[in-house]
């Protein structure tokens, strides 16, 4: 246990070594967030409220939606695909496999360490700016609790997805494209950009069979209190189910992949 704590601490320290990177990312995230808000303002065109297939949505709600979505992005985002891709392409994975640690656990700790750093130096500043310049309404504590549970589950889900793509690297060395693909699918089906309530019913049906909406749309809808407590419970159950499904997929890929492993570069 202590080891994993130390690994997370290490990742945190390593993030500190790349401070400039953090600043740049914060700038681009801020720009992105304000672009989103501006687009919604333009789309509402001074009307304040619009109809959707989940009832009326106010501009205020849409603005909050965009802010929370930007925040979730920082919270779930990781560089597992890049890390795994590099490990496999350079053969560096050999040095991970000679250590008495579980690779996935080590990667997860690394992500957690980086997360602490990003929360302190990206998420808090970004939310601070949003609170000052736009304002963020805060729901009651029961809602917040549900929000944080679904948020953390979403982060685990996204971690599993990226780890699975990383494992595909055992067969196919250029997994960067797959990450791009995951990001595109996520942008469309997770509700990170456009909420599912503006979707045509066909697309809603498709997305309800997939885990992606559980990462962005679920926590944000809970935050905006568009979902009742009972429904939220069902969604948390779905998240847990998907976590198990992805975990099984990981296990299978790992078992098959490790037999395929070739250490690149001797």
């Amino acid at each position, binding site marked *: 246990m202590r*080891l994993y704590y130390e690994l997370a601490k*290490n990742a945190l320290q*390593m993030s500190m070594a790349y401070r400039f990177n953090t600043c740049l990312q914060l700038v681009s995230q801020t720009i992105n967030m304000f672009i989103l808000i501006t687009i919604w303002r333009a789309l509402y065109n001074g009307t304040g409220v619009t109809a959707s297939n989940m009832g009326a949505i106010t501009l205020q709600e849409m603005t909050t939606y965009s802010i929370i979505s930007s925040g979730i992005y920082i919270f779930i985002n990781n560089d597992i695909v890049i890390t795994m891709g590099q490990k496999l392409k350079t053969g*560096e994975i*050999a*040095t991970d*496999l*000679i*250590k008495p640690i579980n690779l996935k656990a080590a990667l997860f700790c690394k992500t957690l360490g980086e997360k602490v750093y990003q929360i302190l130096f990206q998420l808090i500043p970004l939310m601070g700016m949003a609170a000052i310049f736009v304002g963020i309404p805060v729901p009651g504590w029961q809602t917040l609790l549900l929000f944080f549970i679904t948020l953390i589950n979403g982060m685990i889900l996204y971690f599993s997805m990226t780890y699975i793509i990383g494992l595909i690297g055992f067969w196919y060395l250029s997994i960067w494209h797959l990450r791009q693909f995951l990001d595109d699918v996520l942008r469309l089906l997770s509700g990170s950009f456009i909420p599912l309530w503006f979707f045509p019913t066909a697309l809603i049906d498709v997305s309800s069979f997939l885990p992606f909406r559980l990462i962005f749309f679920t926590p944000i809808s809970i935050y905006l209190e568009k979902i009742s407590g009972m429904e939220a419970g069902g969604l948390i159950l779905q998240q847990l189910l998907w976590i198990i499904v992805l975990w099984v997929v990981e296990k299978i890929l790992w078992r098959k992949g490790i037999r395929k492993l070739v250490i690149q570069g001797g």
Partner: protein
Amino acid sequence: MIKVTNLTKDFKIHTREEGLLGAVKSLFSSKYTLKRAVDTVSFTIGQGEIVGYIGPNGAGKSTTIKMLVGILVPTSGSVEVNGLKPYEDRIQNARNMGVVFGQRTQLWWDIPVSESLNLMKFMYKIPEKQFKHNMELFSDILGIDQFMQTPVRQLSLGQKMRADLCAALLHNPGILYLDEPTIGLDVVVKEKIREFIKEVNNTRKTTVILTTHDITDIEKLCSRVIVIDQGRVMYDGNLDNLKTQYGSVETIKLDFAGSITGTSELRTLGIDQYVIEGNTAIMTYDKRQVNSSKIIGWFMERTEVKDFVVSETEVEEVIRRIYQQAADTNDRSNRR
């Protein structure tokens, strides 16, 4: 301790035709050829041995090591290390071994050496007392304290290697695998590392398996060598035997006074080649046929011997010959 039986590893190599058209074709059909990197290799290594695992580039040395440490899964055959199958019990096997890959570091790139080593403490659950003791001992012999606070990415190759060795041995592993530990290092650092390995082997009875291209490594460290080529074991035994088996040729250089006649008689003594220039004779012979004292005696009967030097075949030459022999047999079998 280590038991390897009929170990075999095949790699699939995708063959792609040249040019743009070839690249497009390979999108739709993936042809591949099988390459056998390790071919029915068997050996047993006991505790406390230092074994040199040598062979030309691409012989299958590293592949074997990677199966021993549990990174690669054998295609067939078996590996057993202390009763464990390294691939199946990778983590448990890893607890009792130290590994140094000469070409890459297992330390964390962006943090100082001291913190990397500290992480090792938690990774291998090393008791505080043992950790402290080892750190003192190793930094003494390897001189690590000079760069303890430097991030690994800023270390020189020699420093990195020393830090890696230290990291690999902090948990007192029973087995140490060294994959070209002295590659690219200067003579002084090489010597330091050899002494260190020897010391660890002596005091802790650590089993050491070492691949190298540096003949001095082998001469100074290994009691036993396994020579491998094209995935097959060519020789397994002690170094002296290797020398007598393949290195039975000696050269003698002898200075004498005055002149000498009847040198054609040297042939009947069993000397294969001789050159006489002025007052110096250079002769090569198989030492199983004739020994140096007989040759010197022959000269002393006829003239005054002023000086002589007998040179044995270098290990390097011995190994070159094994490789050469292997290549020849391959040629022959291919022609057949």
